[in-house]
């Protein structure tokens, strides 16, 4: 009885192995799915930093009629996001809307386009090469110097 059972068991296992091998041949190699991938948990922290919240709010601000209006809408979206996030804006100072838009519209057209955050992201090289003078930018905004979250701990 034991011998019969052993034979049946061996045949069943052999059949299983053959089936698996055939299936693998038909469907390509199967892979060990890696357990060593660095954790997505780390990524959550990055998305919660003030800088990330600011940037994402500006990139996702709605498009307006002109690049300069889009730029100001992005600044307003950043301000609202930081209020909600209880964080610190990436700008030290921003001109009032009328003055901001007027200064922006005084820029050459190519530079105005770069004021729209999504355009600037998608044309980074061109925008970097076509940078206005610092005194011109200072009429619109002043960035906050880099201060790390843990700087004063």
């Amino acid at each position, binding site marked *: 009885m034991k011998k019969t059972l052993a034979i049946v068991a061996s045949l069943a296992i052999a059949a299983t192995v053959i089936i698996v091998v055939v299936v693998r041949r038909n469907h390509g190699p199967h892979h060990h799915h*890696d357990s060593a991938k660095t954790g997505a948990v780390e990524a959550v922290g990055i998305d919660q930093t003030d800088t990330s919240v600011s940037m994402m709010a500006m990139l996702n601000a709605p498009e307006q009629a002109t690049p300069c209006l889009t730029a100001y809408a992005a600044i307003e979206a950043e301000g609202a996001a930081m209020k909600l996030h209880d964080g610190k804006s990436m700008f030290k100072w921003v001109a009032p809307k009328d003055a901001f838009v007027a200064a922006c519209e005084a820029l050459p057209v190519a530079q105005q386009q770069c*004021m729209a955050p999504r355009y600037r992201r998608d044309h980074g090289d061109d925008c970097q090469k076509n*940078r206005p003078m610092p005194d011109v930018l200072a009429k619109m905004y002043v960035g906050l110097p880099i201060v790390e979250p843990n*700087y004063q701990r």
Partner: protein
Amino acid sequence: MMKLTILVPFICAVGCTSSVDTRTPVADLSQGLNMLDTSDASWGVTAAYRENDHAVYLEQRVGAMKPQAYREEAPEEPANEIDMRFVDENGNTFFVQRGGDGYVDPTWAQEINDSLLHPAADSDRIRDFGLAQKAAGEFAKAAITNADLAPFAFHASQYAARAIPTQDPTMVAKVAKIEASRPTAYGNYGFGGSWWFEGDLYDKGTSCVFWYCPARHSSVALWAYQTTWQLAVIACNHGTCAGSSKMSYDCNSNSGVWRDNVTISAETNGSTSIGGGCLTSYSWDSGGYNHLCNDDSAYELWQVKNGGPGGGSLDTNGDGYNFVYTGPGTGGDGSWVNYACTCAYNNNCNNDWSRPICP
């Protein structure tokens, strides 16, 4: 025991597949691009490129999903960190690009170290880099037309756009300097000889709006040289990779000496390793038991300069493995910076949102 004997072949039939299994022998490959394994895009791809009687293998493996901020800032890049490497027809890696701190497939680390024990003849390695460039170009063209494979086209196309090291004026100039530094007594290094390491630092502004970038991302390209360039390890440090069209070259560090018995591994291997990255958690809020990309870059550059036998120890806090650096920064204002793999050990990595210097 009997159960185990029965189970082993069964389990292996189900799952014992490695990269080696999917590398079809050169003689069985068609000329040009061969897609060897594209069955699971969430895992990665393997391809080969044959020209006459030689071939290289292209492998990509999918790692962790990048933070949303990274994905929105660079939507043209893959959403996940991806490791990519080229392997020669003898199974030796000669180019690898690591998305995060460790390899998605941990077996790559040992295989890359093994490659240092089996350098190719110069003419073979030069041919390999050339074939890799063709492979990358053809692969990118094929992958971009397939929705599942499109994420794998990005790094391949970036690679294809680069000059191979022996045709890159910067790398050619480096060789002239390296060879000038070769001690006469060691003038005839054979295969399996000593290594010279170069580390090139690249960076770019991050979180940029208008003309303001509040932080910088950095990445290091490590090159290993004997009598030609044998191996490149690109540490992307979780973001855009060194050599990418969006990264700017900053500066270079080198080993300054020829080293023997080197390995390439990560921070916990301490002073006997060359390259690798920090293995603590990755976080922009780098102040605790974690680090960010610029800490990785600082570590990688100091490993190039001081790591390994014959170099100084990076064990600067005396606990056997932790890297810390305190010194002048790159802000131009004379302020000092703190980099570490475990930032809690070094003033919470003050000012590490700026790129490091090249030591």
